[in-house]
């Protein structure tokens, strides 16, 4: 079996990065201090962004670097500033979750046995619409970045839905913790008290 040099390098970089990711994930499992956990999750995001670059997904990599290492780390830090610094020791048995994970993992690995090899050009994933986009995008959209042309044009409706989801999640956060909802409930409480008082007056009368 012949493996060419670039493919060998690429595969080894992939596997090294994956191994580092797994090590970071294990460290996150073991550490109790939440500050360290959050920082490690930033490291995890950065490593996965690197992995996405080696897997040719540059658009995904730039997103993951900005979102995972930037914004979500800040959000988690502000959360632990608002809550607690470290995790309590759990008294639950650790064996059952471990067992569940092993069984699920084994089932998933059994599932991958049918997969085409990594990087196989004749894999079913490349057979249908993916290659079609690459061919037609030149004529129809004329935008060099095919990811943009699919995101914004071929699957524009899909993206509209995603933007709506982001918007909705933002509204949800505002409702939960920005105090916009609290003002309303204070007014409600005042209204309830008022009603009770009025009823009391009516009963007296």
């Amino acid at each position, binding site marked *: 079996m012949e493996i060419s040099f670039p493919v060998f390098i690429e595969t080894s970089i992939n596997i090294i990065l994956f191994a580092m990711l797994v090590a970071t994930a294990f460290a996150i499992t073991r550490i109790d201090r939440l*500050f360290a956990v959050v920082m490690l999750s930033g490291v995890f995001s950065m490593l996965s962004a690197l992995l996405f670059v080696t897997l040719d997904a*540059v*658009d995904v*990599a*730039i*997103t993951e670097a*900005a*979102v995972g290492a*930037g*914004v979500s780390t*800040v*959000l988690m830090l*502000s*959360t*632990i*500033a*608002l*809550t*607690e*610094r470290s995790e309590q020791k759990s008294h639950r048995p650790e064996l059952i979750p471990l067992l569940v994970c092993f069984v699920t993992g084994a089932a998933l690995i059994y599932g991958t046995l049918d997969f085409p090899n990594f990087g196989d050009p004749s894999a079913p994933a490349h057979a249908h619409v993916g290659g079609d986009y690459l061919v037609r995008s030149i*004529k*129809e*959209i*004329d*935008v*060099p*970045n095919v*990811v*943009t*042309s699919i*995101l*914004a*044009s071929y699957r*524009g*409706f899909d*993206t*509209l839905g995603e*933007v*709506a989801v*982001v*918007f909705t*999640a*933002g*509204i949800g*956060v*505002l409702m*939960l*913790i*920005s*105090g916009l909802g609290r003002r309303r409930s204070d007014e409600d409480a005042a209204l309830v008290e008022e009603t009770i008082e009025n009823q009391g007056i009516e009963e007296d009368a």
Partner: protein
Amino acid sequence: MHYHHLILRVITKLLVGTIMLFAFYVQFHGDFSPGGGFQAGVIMAAAFILYGIVFGLYAVQVVFPPWLVHKVMALGVLIYAGVGVYSMMLGYAFLDYNAFDPGHPSHGQHNGILVIEFGVGVTVTGVMIAIYYAFAGRFPQISDEDW
């Protein structure tokens, strides 16, 4: 607070503008290189969040007040959906950008993609900043010395 972290404050002042410029680059060069509305929105929000972390929430809310952020969140979705409605009004399908330049469909596509990516960027910027304001506006349970 204001007498501490001199280096951080100077570097932040230098960086905020650069980060915003990079966000605009990622936004409007997204057709040619990696990037687009989602990434640019997050990067733009990161500039404001950095400013807020270093100079305090009050300083950043003077620049970008919360009521404006809430409007901006909705504005992006409206821009996006508005492009779709506009193409319907021109007699084409929803979000069919060929409508904008029927003689030269790929130009129409370019314009449509540019506008909707801008809408995406605006919404994502707004949502990320709004979420940051919501978290940072709460009273912290852990004091600064405890870190």
